[in-house]
């Protein structure tokens, strides 16, 4: 199944484009994004009175729960479609090096669209690592508080219910702000294709993720050298 997910029928020039997200990762992203947007809209209907009409009659509650199941399935879906990718994201998102720390010092430059002279970055820049780790933590909080509101509401006092709802609302606020930031950087750095075709401009990557490009090219050279050695041996 993993091999099937990696197959891509469109030819991409390796000198101009780099595969950043494999098909499995893009599917997982699409499931996460669509379920999150449904959860946001159906949840907003319970917070913002002009949208309360969506919740009237109760159908949005069912939609919220269906989307919640989709959202909760994301880690399992990731493991199923791209185990290596899931492990890579998890490990990379919580591992910072000296360049990442330096990147945070100049983050304001990156936020205003200036990447020149930013410290060199790997596959994920320091901001993406922080974004990923925050998404993981707040998703865990929102899932746990949501499950309590879903399954154990009848056992809660009004005080406990209010506390649980506050935790749920604040976790959603954090995730929504992270989404705003995510869309912001995707727009500024024209990164839509990374979750569309999976390929991104090599030139952009050399500016923003130079360590990763070097790593890929180094790996490619190693493979070529190994092939040459094999041919000579034959």
């Amino acid at each position, binding site marked *: 199944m993993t091999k099937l997910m990696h197959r891509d029928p469109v030819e991409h020039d390796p000198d101009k484009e780099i595969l950043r997200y494999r098909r499995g990762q893009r599917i997982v992203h699409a499931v996460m994004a669509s379920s999150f947007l449904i959860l946001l809209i159906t949840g907003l209907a319970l917070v913002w009175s002009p949208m309360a009409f969506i919740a*009237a009659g109760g159908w949005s509650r069912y939609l919220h729960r269906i989307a919640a199941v989709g959202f909760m399935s994301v880690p399992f879906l990731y493991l199923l479609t791209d185990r290596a990718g899931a492990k890579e994201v998890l490990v990379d998102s919580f591992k910072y090096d000296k360049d990442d720390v330096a990147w945070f010092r100049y983050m304001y430059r990156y936020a205003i669209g200036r990447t020149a002279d930013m410290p060199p970055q790997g596959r994920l820049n320091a901001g993406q690592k922080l974004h990923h780790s925050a998404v993981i933590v707040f998703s865990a909080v929102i899932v746990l508080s949501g499950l309590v509101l879903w399954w154990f*509401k009848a056992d809660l006092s009004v005080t406990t219910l209010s506390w649980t709802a506050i935790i749920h609302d604040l976790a959603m606020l954090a995730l929504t702000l992270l989404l*705003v930031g995510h869309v912001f950087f995707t727009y500024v750095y024209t990164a839509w294709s990374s979750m569309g075709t999976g390929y991104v401009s090599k030139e952009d990557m050399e500016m923003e993720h130079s360590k990763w490009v070097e790593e890929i090219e180094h790996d490619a050279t190693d493979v070529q050298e190994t092939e040459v050695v094999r041919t000579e041996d034959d």
Partner: protein
Amino acid sequence: MEYAFLLDMSRCIGCEACVVACKTGNELPIGTQYIDLIEHTSGTYPDLQGGFQNHRCYHCIDASCVAVCPTGALFKEDGLTRLNSSACSGCGYCVQSCPYGIPKMENGRATKCDGCASTVAGGELPWCVQTCPAQALKYDQRDLILAEAHERVAAIKGRYPNAQVYGETQAGGLGLILVLPDDPEKLDIPADPPPVPVVTDVWKNVVQPVSMGATALAAIGAGVLGIIARRNHMAELRDIEEKELAGAIAGDSDAEEVQP
């Protein structure tokens, strides 16, 4: 103007006429009723005392059901707690929060007495008040109802020394003023129902509006900054392209010069 019901438990004979009138007048479906008459007997034989708890919405002025309702289906009007059933999302928060255990879920939506809003708007008295044969029920402006409740308590004090008015202060004041012949606990009515918790108030009136405001500000800020930042990034890319082009041209002319 605030209105209220008067419910004189010293006069209630437990005939259930109010239950029937409410159910038929409001055309409530099978299994749904807004008034429950619960018989109470205390003491030991032969010294027994009987009474009824006319269990119905107390129309709290500081109503916790209204405080937690996320869609505004429950709201205060004329001092009473109304329910717009079509706006109910069926979350059940009102069921959890009511200190009197009044709202119930029927077919996925909350139900409770809404003070016969449409009947009163049509110039009639609420169905239960119209029907009560013992004059235990009355509906009027809240201050007039309170005055009458005190008069009635004064009138029965000789017979019921513990008689009292209930609902003047509880839960911020009630829209159902009771004349009780005895302490409220004797009829399983909480003497002092818990107020709406501060944390509920914080959730609805601080966390939610602040979250909405923060999200809106972030979206607007990101929109404005996004345009500036993208312009900067595009300029940066153009600079790089121009430098590369200049380098390539310089490279070409060097190569031409070298050629004989």
